C-alpha cells in the first residue's frame, strides 16, 4: 500500500466512468477502512458498526456526483463517514437522551488530530519492509492479536512478534524519541 490516496482515487475515477470492477475493488477497500473508523470511535463490540458501514457505502454510491474529480478521495469519503457517524449519534441521543453536542465537538477535534497522526504513522510505516509494516498495522492500529496477525500474514507468531518489536525499536530510534517500544 504505497499511497492509499492515489490508489483509491484512481479507482474512484475509473468507477465514475462506469468501471464496475474498479468500483467493486474501491468499495471493498473503503468498507475495510470504514469498519476501522467506526470501530475506533464506537468501540469494537458495537452492534451497529456494520449497519453504519453499509449506510455509508450506500451514501457513497448514491451521492458520488458530489465528488469533485480534482479533489482528494479519502477526504471526501471520510467526510461522508463522519456525517453518518454524527447522524447516528444524534439518533442515538433521541433514544438514549445523551447530549450529542459535546460528542460532535469531540469528534471534530479528534478528526483533525487523527488525520494528521495517521498520516504520520503511515509515513513512518512506509519506511519499513512491507510485511513488517503490515504486521504493525494489523496489531497496533487494527487491534488484532499477534496470533491473528500472524495467521493473516502467514508467518509464525514468534517471528511476527520479534519483527514487530524490532521495527518499533527502529521507528522510535528514527524519530529520536526515547519512548519504549516494548509497552
Amino acid at each position, binding site marked *: 500500500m504505497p499511497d492509499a490516496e492515489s490508489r483509491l482515487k484512481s479507482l474512484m475515477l475509473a*468507477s*465514475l*466512468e*462506469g468501471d*464496475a*470492477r474498479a*468500483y*467493486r475493488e474501491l*468499495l*471493498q477497500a473503503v*468498507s475495510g477502512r470504514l469498519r476501522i473508523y467506526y470501530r475506533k470511535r464506537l468501540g469494537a463490540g458495537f452492534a451497529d458498526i*456494520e449497519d453504519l*458501514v*453499509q449506510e455509508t*457505502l*450506500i*451514501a457513497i*454510491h448514491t*451521492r*458520488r*456526483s*458530489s*465528488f*469533485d*474529480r480534482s*479533489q482528494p478521495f479519502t*477526504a*471526501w469519503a*471520510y*467526510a*461522508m463517514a*463522519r*456525517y453518518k457517524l454524527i*447522524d447516528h449519534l444524534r439518533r442515538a441521543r433521541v433514544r438514549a437522551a445523551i447530549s450529542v453536542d459535546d460528542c460532535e465537538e469531540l469528534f471534530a477535534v479528534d478528526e483533525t488530530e487523527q488525520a494528521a497522526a495517521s498520516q504520520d504513522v503511515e509515513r513512518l510505516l512506509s519506511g519499513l519492509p512491507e510485511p513488517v509494516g503490515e504486521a504493525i498495522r494489523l496489531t497496533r492500529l487494527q487491534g488484532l492479536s499477534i496470533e491473528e496477525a500472524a495467521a493473516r500474514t502467514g508467518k509464525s507468531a514468534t517471528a511476527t512478534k520479534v519483527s514487530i518489536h524490532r521495527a518499533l525499536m527502529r521507528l522510535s530510534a528514527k524519530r529520536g524519541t526515547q519512548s519504549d517500544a516494548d509497552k
Partner: protein
Amino acid sequence: MQTSDLIEHLAADLRPTARHSIVHRLAVSLVAGGLVALVLVLVSLGPRSDLADAVLSSPFWMKWGYTLALTAAALALCARLARPEGTPGILPIVLAVPFLLICIGALVQLGVASPAQRAPLWLGNSALKCPWIIAALSVPIFASVLWVLRQFAPTNLRLTGFAAGCLAGAVAAVVYAVHCNESTMPFVATWYSAGILIPALLGLVVGPRALRW
C-alpha cells in the same frame, strides 16, 4: 444483508457518472426556478413600462450588478458546501462584499442629498412591498436549489440552507428588477437586501431538515 453482497449489488447498479460540475447543475436549477419567477412577475406585476430604456441606464445596472454579484458568490458557496468535505473558506466574506459596497454607495448618496430628499431616496414608493415580493418570487427558485442540493452530500446543513436561501433570494431580486422602477442605492441596499435575507434566514432554519440525508 452482508456487506459483500451489498458491494456486489452497488457495483451491478453502477452507471457512468456525468462530468457536469456541481456549479453547472446548480446553475441549471437557477435558470429553471428563475424562469418560473420571471413568468410570475410578467403575469402578476408586468414589466416596468420603461424597461427598454431602463436596461440602458446606470441605476438598472446598479441593481443588477448588486444582485448578480450576490448570485455569483452564493452560487460558489453552495457549490462548495454541496461536497461533504467542503468548507466555506472565505466565501462568506466574498458574499458580504457586494452588500458592503452598496451600503457605502447608499451612505454616499444619502450624504450628498439634502435632508428633505433623504426619506424618499431611502423609501422610494414601494419600500414595504419590495421585500415580500422578492421573498415570494424566491420560492420556486429556493425549491429547485434545495432539490438539487439534496442530491449531493452537504454536511453543514444550516450554513448550506442559508447559502441556498441567499442564492434563491438573489436570483429572485434579479428577476424582480424587471418590474421594479426604484433607482436609488439606499432603497436597494435596504429593501432588496431585506427581501434576500428572508429566504436566507428561512434556509438557516429549515436547512437541517430539508437537506438531511
